[in-house]
């Protein structure tokens, strides 16, 4: 237990942050579903997608919410002395920034599978970095769960001492 990071957030704050992580995973899931819908049903053939298509707007809004939630978890990690949570979330934030650039590239260069190599490259960057961000967010959540477990274990001992 010596090398565990529990930070100075307290049990209530940790639980609140964990709920945010769960909400973030829900957003990741919806982001994946809308992304797949665009990939399979919209741009699978000769069709292209524009910025104002409703599925695309939903996908972009979810991307913003996802980025904001991950960023908030990173800030909490830095401010409340949870270095690993902060660093894993920082990695996820960086991945999401580059993935967004990939998405913008996809939209601005045609927005379809047959629009050319740069459009495809934008799509690949988006998908690959989305998975990396999900993986890093998962590790940050694991660290928060671990901090909650340790705080719960330590608390009754402290109460007995007082």
């Amino acid at each position, binding site marked *: 237990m010596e090398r565990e990071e529990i930070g100075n957030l307290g049990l209530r704050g940790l639980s*609140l942050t964990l709920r945010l992580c769960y909400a973030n995973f829900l957003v990741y899931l919806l982001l994946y579903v809308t992304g797949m819908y665009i990939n399979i049903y919209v741009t699978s053939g000769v069709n292209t997608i524009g*910025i*104002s298509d409703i599925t695309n*707007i939903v996908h972009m*809004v979810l991307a913003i919410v996802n980025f*904001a939630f991950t960023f*908030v978890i990173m800030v909490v990690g830095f401010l*409340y002395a949870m270095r690993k949570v902060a660093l894993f979330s920082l990695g996820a934030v960086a991945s999401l920034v580059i993935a967004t650039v990939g998405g913008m590239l996809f939209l*601005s260069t045609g927005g379809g599978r047959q629009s050319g190599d740069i459009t495809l490259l934008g799509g690949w960057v988006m998908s690959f970095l989305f998975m990396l961000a999900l993986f890093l967010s998962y590790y940050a959540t694991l660290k928060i769960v671990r901090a909650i477990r340790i705080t719960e274990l330590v608390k009754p001992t402290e109460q007995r001492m007082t």
Partner: protein
Amino acid sequence: MTVQTLSENVSLKNESRRARWILYFVYLQALFLILTYIVGVWLGTEIHNATITTPDLVVHGILASGFALLSAVVGFLAALENQKRVAISNLALFFITIVAGATGFAYLGNNSSSNQILVTNLSMMTTIGIAMPITGYSLAKISRSASGLKSNEHSSLSSLMTYFALVALSFTVIAGTAVETIALYAFAVVLHVGLAAFTVSLVLGIVILSVLEGSTLDKTGSRSWVPQRVIYSLLGLAAISIAGGDGVITVTVGGVSYVVVMAELTVLIYSFLLLSIEAPLHLNLAFFRRPVSKSALKQQE
């Protein structure tokens, strides 16, 4: 000193340090709001047929995203620090900003439709309008806990009037946006001018109340006068007066460049009102104040 009081001191110090961090985020949030507003007004008035790759639009998008992000950060950190109202208002602001952003995306695909332009302009300006009093309220609440004051202590009258002025200013901005729509023109102009006049009177009220605060004594027998608040509110009054003059020129001469100037003056008013809430850069003016005589204290009792 007992172990309990020592730990209480440490926890108070930690709370104050974290509140100071949130305060920096609120300042940054206000800065992003100002820049998003200015670039947005510039885009709306000077650039036609903006597309996803228009550089000004990319800048506006990044600034608006930064603002939404900071609203989420402030909201969640406030929730962690038990500042319920600040948390709820900022998280609501975060979601409203995202909805306004979505109308912007829809506008990019259909930028010739007058209906779409109206929806985009009004939703974005309403977001700016809602954000103005929320950032002011957050700043007031968080700065109180950063300076170690209890959040349930009553706000001063001048602070309350500043909230009202921020609300009036936000409604003025929203009514000003509706002026651009032909169907709403006459109603919006009357509303905009009326609300602007109301804002002027409220800012004047802040000046008067800030001066009057100096004439009363608090429980410790010292005067609670903050000269910086008087200066900031006077500067706000000057800015809103110039904005009024600019409005008259816009109506008589015309030209969208005057609208951009009005927007810039609006953010000046907003900034001065925010500064007058928190009144930073306190100078030590103790030497300037007259010592309170015992008879004055007795009179007040």
